[in-house]
């Protein structure tokens, strides 16, 4: 197990380098003058531009720029914006909010999605099944900003950033995955319902609640939990639209305004962190898999 984790961690390195390099290239290689409009109506004075070009290594070729950026990143230095604010401060303010929003969305999609999935999986083609089918189809076909504006119209924007405040935005953020979780659970339950071990559990004289709640569910949640694990990373990345709609000052808002203002450092910093979260979660999910299914052993 230990060796497996080590090997997986080593595998993360090239993936991390590759993705961050692509991001860096996309952000800094855009043929737009990063200083346009930075100095009010007039073009920026040449001295300022020269200083900034030196500070951000803009005269090096892109690859050298990237290596220098990465080197500073490893010492925990996310750099500064053109106006001199520490990017790490910006991220430290915004990140916890987005994490909270993603966790709220994850909890909601897990609870609602799995409940709907179990109920419909047990009674395929019943009334509840058709109801959920239509509901999930609607959720899947509606773009997030549409559900977002509808719910914002009904409930307004959140007052703060506590877990309770974030429930409505969490529903919006998690709605797509909720539909997916319910279908995944439904399929898994319906498949395992006729499994031999479920029949054995019934033949042992166990109450139905235990047959379903323990024997059937425990086997059926394996793919669902692994999906939820990878989804946490996706939710944080996908929070941009939701945060925009509900005016939440998380990393979504941060990325959004800084793309507009061409603050490349902020964008690369935030996205690099998102990539890291994603990679770590995928490793956690793999390990979780081995915990959930004892037949899987990594060596």
């Amino acid at each position, binding site marked *: 197990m230990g060796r497996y984790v080590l090997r997986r961690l080593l595998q993360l390195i090239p993936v991390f380098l590759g993705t961050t390099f692509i991001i860096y290239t996309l952000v800094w290689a855009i043929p737009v003058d990063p200083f346009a409009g930075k100095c009010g109506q007039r073009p920026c004075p040449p001295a300022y531009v020269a200083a900034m070009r030196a500070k951000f290594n803009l005269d090096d070729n892109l690859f050298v720029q990237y290596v220098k950026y990465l080197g500073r990143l490893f010492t925990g230095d996310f750099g500064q914006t053109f106006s001199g604010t520490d990017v790490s401060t910006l991220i430290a303010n915004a990140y916890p909010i987005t994490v909270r929003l993603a966790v709220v969305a994850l909890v909601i999609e897990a609870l609602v999605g799995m409940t709907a999935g179990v109920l419909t999986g047990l009674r395929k083609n019943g009334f509840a099944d058709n109801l959920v089918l239509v509901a999930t189809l609607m959720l899947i076909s509606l773009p997030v900003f549409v559900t977002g504006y509808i719910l914002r119209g009904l409930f307004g924007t959140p007052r703060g950033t506590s877990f309770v405040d974030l429930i409505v935005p969490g529903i919006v953020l998690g709605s797509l995955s909720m539909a997916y979780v319910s279908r995944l659970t439904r399929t898994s339950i319906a498949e395992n319902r*006729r*499994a*031999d*071990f479920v*029949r*054995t*559990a*019934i*033949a*042992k*004289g*166990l*109450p139905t609640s*235990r047959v379903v709640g*323990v*024997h059937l569910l*425990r*086997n059926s949640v*394996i793919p669902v939990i692994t999906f939820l694990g990878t989804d946490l990373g996706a939710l944080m990345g996908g929070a941009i639209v939701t945060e925009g709609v509900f005016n939440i000052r998380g990393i979504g808002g941060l990325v959004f305004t800084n793309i507009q203002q061409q603050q490349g450092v902020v964008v690369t910093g935030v996205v690099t962190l998102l990539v890291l979260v994603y990679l770590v979660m995928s490793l956690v999910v793999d390990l979780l898999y081995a915990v*959930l*299914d*004892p*037949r899987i052993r990594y060596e």
Partner: protein
Amino acid sequence: MSTVYDGESGEFVPPQEIAAAQDESLLQVLGLQVEFRTRDGVAKVLNGVSYHVNAGETLAVLGESGSGKSVTAQAIMGILDTPPAFVTGGSVTFKGEELLTASAERRRMVRGEGIAMIFQDALSALNPVFTVGFQIAEQLRLRRGMGKAQARAAAIELLEQVRIPHAAGRFGDYPHQFSGGMRQRVMIAMALALDPEVLIADEPTTALDVTVQAQIMDLLAEIQRERAMGLVLITHDLGVVAEVADRIAVMYAGRIVESGGAREIYRRPGHPYTVALLESLPRLDLKGQQLNTIKGLPPSLTDIPPGCPFHPRCRLAQDICRRQVPEPVPLDAARSSACHFTGELMDRV
């Protein structure tokens, strides 16, 4: 005493000779009918199955694959998948109590404690994500109200009884960590947990290596003797049957075509299908020669031929066999056969 719906004649009939046997029988199946309603039509899988088993007795249920042996067992246990399976007639009594009309809760109480069952493939029948100890102990905790430690001790004792080496150390192992034979022993230990009076073993050795098969059979026979259980042994290993069975019920196309004492049936089979089955038995003295298999295929259960369902494959078939279903006819107090020409057949041998 329950009345029995006879699907053939469409009347309620309590067959006299079986009614007499019922008083002493631990488990009694009478005229059991089950059909599968699927999109492709209705398959009449059981067409009036009757058999019984007494305490301390081993009944072997024989028949080709697809003849309805497992469905009968599942109907007895009340673990059929409904839908598509529906019990449409007959009766199942355990110690005189009708099970088919009993409440769901009452049936659950009979499962495990009255009648327990072990399955052919222990690997898929055991839950892969729980330890074997957990799976045995949970019955003891839920049905016997034992505490954790007590249930653990009892489960280990059961594992020892089925002779799993280092039972205490293997309590926490998962099913996939056992060999096939050991896994089937776990399955047996689990079935014995609530000390059942009847054990139904559905082809318990079919999935195992030949060398292990004999060990598992010996274990089952020993346990049956020690506990004086009624054992319903579903198998197509006729060698095993000769060794352990007291009585035999031969199934064909969802019916019992012949039943009676094992020794009597071996010596003088009363049904052409039984004759064919016995002829298909590999014999040591004929080693190297081609095995006699029964010619033709069992009928499709969505389209059972009129008359005797065996007639397309029967060497003795006459005109009447194509027209009239042969009813089970008692040959003596303990034997019956459903063939128009049983008399001729038995005289001939």
